[in-house]
């Protein structure tokens, strides 16, 4: 082992550094990427559903429904009483005044009519002018809107293009990253299998040591005949002391189960592995008695 270490010190250190670097990158990535998540409002949150309360105090969070708008039309005013005055009797002196007044009235009426005509004419021309102005304004607005729409469309297209570009870049990045990860994993696996092949022999020796110890301790009951298969999970602590024995799937009877538990406990402390790195807390045993 030591000779091996000396001989392969550099690759091993390199490998260790590579492991550390990968782990650091992963942890950094995890930290960087994970932290903002907590700031962001969570997409889903679980709450304890409060028991529906009877309609007490609390208002729903939404805005209160608007109060009904006051009626725009005023209430109908009551009809005003019409004052009926009796017409005065005719008077000759008054008649002349009346004629003059009549004339004056007619002149006033004509003048009024002329004014009204003028007013009407002006109104018509005003209306025409207004209409023309409105039309112009509408036309202008339409033109402006069209321009705005065109501009918006152009903007959108630009944004879409930018997004597509970003996505493409991201995907390319991701592909590259996946490739890098695969390379890393492969390197790790290769290294592992190199080490594993070396360990396999030692591990087989470890298993054989444990087997010998337990077989010496297993006082086989008469009912432990060929065909009996019992899977057993054993927990040990460094030093080999057995802390737990669990007999799982087992077609043996109670005596077989009891004998297995007793054997493992009596075999404790279990033998130490040939190399400390081979130690395993959890051991799996299969009792499979032959003839």
């Amino acid at each position, binding site marked *: 082992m030591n000779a091996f270490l000396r001989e392969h010190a550099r690759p091993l250190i390199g490998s260790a550094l590579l492991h550390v670097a*990968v*782990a650091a990158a*992963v942890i950094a*990535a*995890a930290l*960087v*990427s*994970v932290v*903002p*998540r907590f700031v962001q409002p969570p997409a889903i949150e679980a709450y304890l559903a409060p028991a529906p309360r009877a309609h007490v105090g609390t208002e729903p969070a939404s805005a209160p429904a608007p109060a009904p708008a006051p009626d725009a039309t005023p209430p109908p005013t009551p009809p005003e009483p019409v004052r009926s005055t009796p017409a005065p009797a005719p008077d000759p002196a008054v008649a002349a005044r009346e004629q003059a007044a009549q004339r004056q009235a007619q002149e006033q009426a004509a003048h009024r009519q002329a004014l009204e005509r003028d007013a009407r004419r002006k109104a018509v021309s005003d209306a025409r002018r207004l209409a023309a102005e409105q039309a112009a304004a509408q036309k202008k607005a339409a033109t402006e809107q069209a321009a705005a729409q065109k501009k918006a469309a152009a903007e959108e297209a630009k944004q879409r293009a930018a997004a597509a570009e970003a996505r493409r870049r*991201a995907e390319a*990045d*991701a592909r590259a*990253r*996946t490739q890098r*990860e*695969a390379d*890393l*994993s492969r390197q*790790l*696996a290769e290294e*592992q299998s190199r*080490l*594993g092949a070396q*360990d396999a022999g030692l*591990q087989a020796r*470890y*298993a054989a040591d*444990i*087997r010998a110890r*337990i*077989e*010496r301790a*297993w*006082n*086989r009951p*008469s009912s*432990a005949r060929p065909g009996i298969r019992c899977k057993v999970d054993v927990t040990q602590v460094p030093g080999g002391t057995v802390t737990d024995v669990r007999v799982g799937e087992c077609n*043996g*009877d*109670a*005596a*077989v189960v*009891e*004998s297995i*538990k*007793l*054997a493992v*406990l*009596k075999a404790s402390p279990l033998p130490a592995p040939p190399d400390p*790195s*081979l130690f*395993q807390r959890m051991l*799996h*045993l*299969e*009792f*499979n*008695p*032959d003839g």
Partner: protein
Amino acid sequence: MAELRRFLPALLLGLLVAVPAHAQLTVQITQGVTTPIPVAIVPFAGEGLPVDVAAVVEADLARSGRFAGLPRASMPQHPTAAAQLDVAQWRLVKTDFLVLGRVRRDGDRYEVEFELYNVVTGARLLAYSVGAGASGLRLAAHRTADLVYEKILGVPGAFASRIAYVLIEGPPASRRWKLVVADADGENPVVVVASQQPLMSPAWSPDGTRLAYVSFEGHASGVWVQNLLTGVREKVSGRPGINGAPAWSPDGGRLALALSQPDGNVDVFVLDLSSRALLRVTDDPSIDTEPCFAPDGQSLYFTSDRAGRPQIYRIVLAAGERPKRVTFEGSYNARPRVSPDGTQLAVVTQDQGAYRIATVDIASGRSKVVTSGQLDEGPSFAPNGQTVVYAARERGRGVLATAAVDSGVTSRISAASGDVREPAWSPRL
């Protein structure tokens, strides 16, 4: 940023998959030992008892070859109830299991209460009460041993069963033959028949109520069946010549016998006990003898010297086929007895110039010598198939001994003076 987040899990997963350097270790366990399991049988509480129950239990377990009792002097405490038990103290004396208990007297009855603990895990595996009549305290102790044995080894014990054997007493001039039935530990021997002529080959009926045996009373061999409860006995075969080697069918309705023909040739027959009809099973100029039914009642194992030396053969009763040879290891295999599960035979085999007991795996033909005497004879399986009883030679006389089939551990069963022959282990009673 968002992309990194998206790919982070994949990257992390890649690292996780890559990091564990060693696959989970799976260890296959295919072998075990059958060395004696250390067990402590603490003296039971109880005043003025006629039997030391714990001592009987311990002797039973030890005789099986699968247990080693902790001497009382080494016991750190003598608890007789769960509350008094300090498991930690027992771990220090390296015992795996512990039995404690009490005997309560109720008029002329006894109640044996006991508990079985796994000392290593501290778990109580069994809490049981066995009732017994005034004279049955030993039997209650044997039943206790049976339950402990079964809980730990997965098959019932055979301590509460009995053994029949032939006992030869006296000098040659005034020799007497006795048929004795005793407890499986040799205690409580009862003579069921005594004769001044040879008695031979006792065989238990499957229900354990009757014995078939050979008696030479009247100076001629005959096969007799005796009811053990009433003492009534009846001769079922008294043909001229040899009437020998009775063996019961599993249903108890037939006896396989070895009978001689007028020309002196011995063959195997089956006698129907109710109709007395006799069926010839073998017909060969060699000697075919010592038949034994397979547990299914469909075939017989027997000894034959048709190949020159005695070997075991098997014949199917209904098929009309020629017998097939079963034993091939060793030049001498005789006196087959089949195990209760029908998978093995106990035989007398010649091994390094001595006659010893071997078990033969019927399927493979593989044979295993389980005793180490010079002239061991008459093997018979215990009803649990774990032990065979046989007669061993010790200073010129036969003594009862047992051999554990698994481990080959043998032990002597104390028996009264005399020459013991042909023990037969009873079925479960």
